[in-house]
């Protein structure tokens, strides 16, 4: 299914509404980084990736690893709306009788690998890309990281490995929203210049607006044609789409705390009341 631009923004709004519903329902979870990564996931799952919800284990499929596994609401909502499992399952998020754990788990149809502990997804992606090359498969591996996650040493080790093995079948996407749990990333652990840092590790680096569908599309296309591994820096807004959550560290890991705030968020995301 390939979606048009208008469809994509409709789909993204729908995903955002499900994210808010999930964390409000569970009264826990991570809305901020889920809303910032929504447009990236929308473009990947509804336009770019070779996937089939009816054949989630097809060997030829593209793979996506959400290394920032706390953004599970965004991935679960995307997969459900894309048809991997019923949207009604989302109401069980973070509850004991549900398959939808707080952080991404492999039990969920369409999920490739369990994640949540930061810094490990890029290495797993390197392994998948190496396996694809050994098997002569054409699939692509997408890895989505958070900017706080770049503080983990494991990420930089894996960048070295991606360069060494020249894995041009991998696209890493940094959801650069500038906020981590304790506050603004520039205060917690500032990085002088991620773009030149990653470039100096030998990767093809492209910087884009992570909420602009054309730019996401063009960057992903460019990564498919690159002879090197590609690292897309997507500048995003934490809590995108909900005014009181935007750029607010408080909503990294907290749901709307009242019915009023919940309804306000849903209304802003286009819910007809």
């Amino acid at each position, binding site marked *: 299914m390939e979606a048009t631009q208008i469809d994509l923004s409709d789909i993204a709004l729908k995903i955002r509404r499900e994210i808010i519903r999930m964390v409000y329902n569970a009264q826990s979870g991570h809305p901020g980084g889920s809303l910032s990564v929504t447009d990236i996931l929308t473009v990947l799952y509804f336009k770019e990736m070779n996937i089939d919800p009816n054949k989630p284990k097809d060997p030829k499929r593209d793979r996506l690893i959400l290394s920032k596994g706390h953004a599970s609401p965004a991935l679960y909502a995307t997969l459900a709306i894309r048809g991997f499992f019923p949207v009604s399952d989302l109401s069980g998020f973070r509850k004991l009788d549900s398959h939808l754990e707080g952080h991404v788990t*492999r039990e969920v149809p369409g999920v*490739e*690998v*369990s*994640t*949540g*502990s930061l*810094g*490990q*997804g*890029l*290495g*797993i*992606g*390197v*392994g*998948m*890309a*190496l*396996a*694809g090359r*050994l*098997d002569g498969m054409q699939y692509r591996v997408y890895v989505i990281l958070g900017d706080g996650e770049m503080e983990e*040493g*494991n990420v930089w*080790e*894996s960048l*070295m*490995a991606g360069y*060494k*093995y020249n894995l041009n079948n991998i696209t890493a996407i940094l959801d650069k929203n500038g906020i981590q749990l304790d506050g603004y990333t520039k205060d917690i652990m500032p990085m002088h210049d991620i773009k030149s840092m990653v470039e100096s590790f030998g990767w093809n680096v492209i910087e884009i607006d992570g909420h602009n569908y054309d730019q996401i599309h063009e960057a992903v296309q460019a990564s498919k044609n690159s002879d090197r591994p590609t690292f897309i820096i997507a500048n995003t807004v934490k809590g995108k789409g909900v005014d009181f959550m935007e750029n607010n560290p408080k909503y990294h890991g907290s749901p709307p705390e009242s019915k009023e705030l919940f309804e306000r968020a849903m209304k802003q995301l286009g819910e007809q009341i």
Partner: protein
Amino acid sequence: MKTESLRDTYGKELVELGRKDPDIVVLDADLSSSTKTGYFAKEFPERFFNMGISEQSMVTTAAGLAISGKKPFVSTFAIFLMRTYEQIRQSICYNDVPVRFVVTHGGITVGEDGATHQIVEDVGIMSGLPNMSVIVPSDSVETKSVIDYLENIKHPHYVRLSREKFPVINDLSYEFKIGRGYVVKDGSDATVIANGIMVSKALEAANALKDKGIDLRIINMPSVKPIDKDIIIKAARETGRIITAEEHSIYNGLGSRVSEVVSENYPVIVKRIGMRDTFGKSGKAMELFSYFHMDVKDIIDYVIQSLEEKSYENIS
């Protein structure tokens, strides 16, 4: 007794496996000449990944390879794998993918390199992980059989080898089975349950004790997890006294596992031989066993001591 290097056996058997199974891949972290994965690297350069001194990257990459249907063997020194405990927990064990950790230089037989390169906690650390099996082979024959067994596993495994050459105690018909202990010498007065190099030391102790009229049973327990409960309970019932011996801390290793089985099922006196809440030390490997009271003489002393104590049944 003839001695053979376990890591050399590992390296050679890996090449054999690689010849017959194209899905076998090997990762190392700049120690392939010591771990002997270098043999595989030479024959199958396209299936060997030297990840550099980057153990976290090595472990997460292995997870990705295993998820994608490859059969990764991951090697480095036991101590250096431990810094990736959390990668192993999350990316390997939680995803429950069959990564084969075969680490060398476990225990104190690294000798002169000293405490920073010796590890006596790894078996306990790895045994605590859900889905992980933990194996400590006693000689090169057993090592070869363990490596063959690893070809078609479905879950993660940790195999711990030591640096020194070990006496060969198993005959060539030996076949490793996960979760099984092996009676290498039957006896009725007391049982020594050992793994790794301590099995050969226990055999030496048994010979010396025979002269004193003590008939020792010796069980080789390569599988620390899952452990062979039946063989332990039977030994407790039939010999009344158990001595464990391992090239590892007595905490959270073989001694602890055996104690758990005994205390929950058939309480008898258990004495544990191993490292006691301490780091290692520089010295010749075999000198260290005597320094840390883990040698043949110590096994003999522990057995005699246990026989001098009243059994629990007699106390009540």
